[in-house]
């Protein structure tokens, strides 16, 4: 569907992205992780041709977007803030967008507005942060795009609204096979939504992984010992998620029988093997260094 080939971009002399390549398939939700300033938003803006890449190409269904911008009728970018929407009501925005996106589905937009009880008569700037995000999503989905680029869609909203926003995205993908490229700081959101994730670090896209496979790779073990084994575990470079007295929680690759044997040789009184979440995998993979 969308393919980024060897994308590089420097802004004011600073290299932001270097040789980034990525392919997102139909119906896939791809999570882009990275610290502030790592180039996540720049990558989305490059895809949408708001800014131009210094080198590399971006293809949508094999068509280069820069040369054929009309294919952007199939791609919607939802930034963190959209000042253009501010002075308009829902109806006015629909009126503008349906002339730009030929596939814009007013009936579907109305249905989503009713489902999420978003006020239709208020101007966008008068809505709460959560409602703004929801309205932006409704308008994005109603344009019937094949790919949606979401920049921090759950940033600054409460848990209930976040749940609604995520559900809206999940439903859309399930019903219409829309692809989504999402950036977020929230690992739990990424974990809940994405099929694959990638990490922007040092200008490059690294660790592009299938989320389920990734979680299958690791196992979390809760153990209890008679004695203090902290040093012994650390000497083996086993990531320790938690220690409370004689209770230890560690993370190891599922296939690492050597480390598992070592832990068993320490004669734990309790041994519980548990599934892991994304944050724990990251701690294991990146040695506890916070990178998101």
């Amino acid at each position: 569907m969308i393919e980024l080939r060897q994308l590089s971009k420097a802004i004011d002399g600073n290299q932001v992205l270097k040789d980034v390549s990525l392919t997102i398939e139909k119906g896939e939700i791809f999570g882009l992780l990275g610290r502030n300033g790592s180039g996540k938003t720049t990558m989305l803006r490059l895809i949408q041709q708001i800014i131009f890449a210094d080198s590399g190409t971006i293809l949508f269904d094999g068509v280069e977007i820069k040369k054929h911008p009309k294919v952007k009728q199939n791609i919607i970018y939802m930034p963190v803030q959209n000042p253009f929407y501010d002075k308009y009501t829902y109806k006015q925005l629909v009126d503008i967008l349906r002339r730009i996106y030929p596939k814009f589905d007013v009936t579907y937009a109305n249905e989503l507005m009713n489902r999420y009880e978003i006020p239709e008569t208020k101007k966008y700037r008068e809505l709460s942060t959560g409602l703004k995000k929801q309205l932006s999503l409704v308008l994005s989905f109603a344009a019937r795009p094949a790919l949606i680029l979401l920049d921090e869609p759950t940033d600054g909203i409460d848990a209930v609204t976040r749940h609604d926003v995520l559900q809206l995205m999940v439903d859309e993908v399930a019903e219409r096979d829309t692809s989504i490229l999402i950036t977020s700081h929230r690992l739990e959101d990424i974990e809940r939504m994405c099929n694959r994730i990638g990490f922007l670090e040092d200008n490059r896209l690294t660790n592009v992984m299938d989320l389920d496979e990734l979680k299958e790779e690791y196992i979390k073990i809760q153990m209890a010992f008679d004695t203090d084994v902290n040093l012994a575990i650390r000497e083996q470079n086993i990531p320790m998620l938690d220690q409370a007295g004689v209770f230890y929680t560690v993370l190891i690759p599922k296939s690492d029988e050597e480390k598992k044997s070592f832990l068993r040789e320490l004669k734990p009184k309790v041994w519980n093997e548990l599934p892991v979440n994304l944050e724990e995998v990251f701690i294991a993979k990146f040695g506890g260094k916070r990178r998101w």
Partner: protein
Amino acid sequence: MVDRGLLYREWKQNQVVILLSIAFLVLANPLSIVNTYLSYQGCLDRQDPQYCDFIVNYSISNLIDLNWVPGVILAVCFLGMERSKGTMDFILSLPYNRSQIFQTKFWLGGFVIVLSQLIGFLLAWLLILVYSPEHVYFFEHSSVGVIVISFMAYCLLMAAGALTGSVFAQLLTAFAAAVLPYLIVALPVGNFEVVFGVNIWEMFPSPEAYFSLTSNLLYLVPIGYVASDWLIDSKYILMIPAAMSILFYLIGLISFKKLPSERNGHFFLWNRLDRPVQILVMAFGILGFGLFGYYTGHSIIGYILGMIIGAVAGFFVSYFSIYKKTKV
């Protein structure tokens, strides 16, 4: 070239400004006639008819002399405001190429300026037929000339908006470009006269030749057209602002297509312009303040002091305006 969806977006975004511009440009010309007529009627009420003349003369101060102002405001709304408010990103994300975006904005404004004034011209012409003044001077020349000049001002502001990243930068760049030909010629000549103790006009065969040349050169300075001196010269003088319009349009189109939009908020979108323009501003500061220093006391000390002050002022003005990014 111009997309309807994009055109509608521009219309919705700038509805109020466009309507006010149309209203002003349509009414300015007929209101000038009405104003002259009412003055004539007032005169008739107060004085004997033999002392009252109903003459429509466009060479004296007229409301249409301000017709360039809506063009400036429209161009600022189309480009500078979009960059300053952060709405430019939304437009660039839409399924259009940059050429289409610029052309849509440009021709929307262009048609507002030209068509509104043509309607105004037509209404004024009808009023002249109805009122039948004793004499009408410069009506066609002035009305058409003002259309050309206001379009040039609009093109200049659009070009400046395509080169710069904020409203302030757009206005300052447009003003600087509007006076640039004058500064490039007059400041070095003025300084030459001070340093070598000569008068340039003495080098000409006659003072008339000198003044003829300078007055003709003034037509190359865009800001010179704000005054209506061009009206008493040849009609073909208007070919100059027409040619300038084409030049500014091309500069705007190419700049909008090629320059990086990630520098919104910076003075120039193309950072390679920063240093040369800073040097130019400092040079003008040195030459301008030097002349000012010299003419306050007619001394070379004043001249040198002026130059030093000009260098410092030029450096700080250029540094803070060009290198300090405004918040977007």
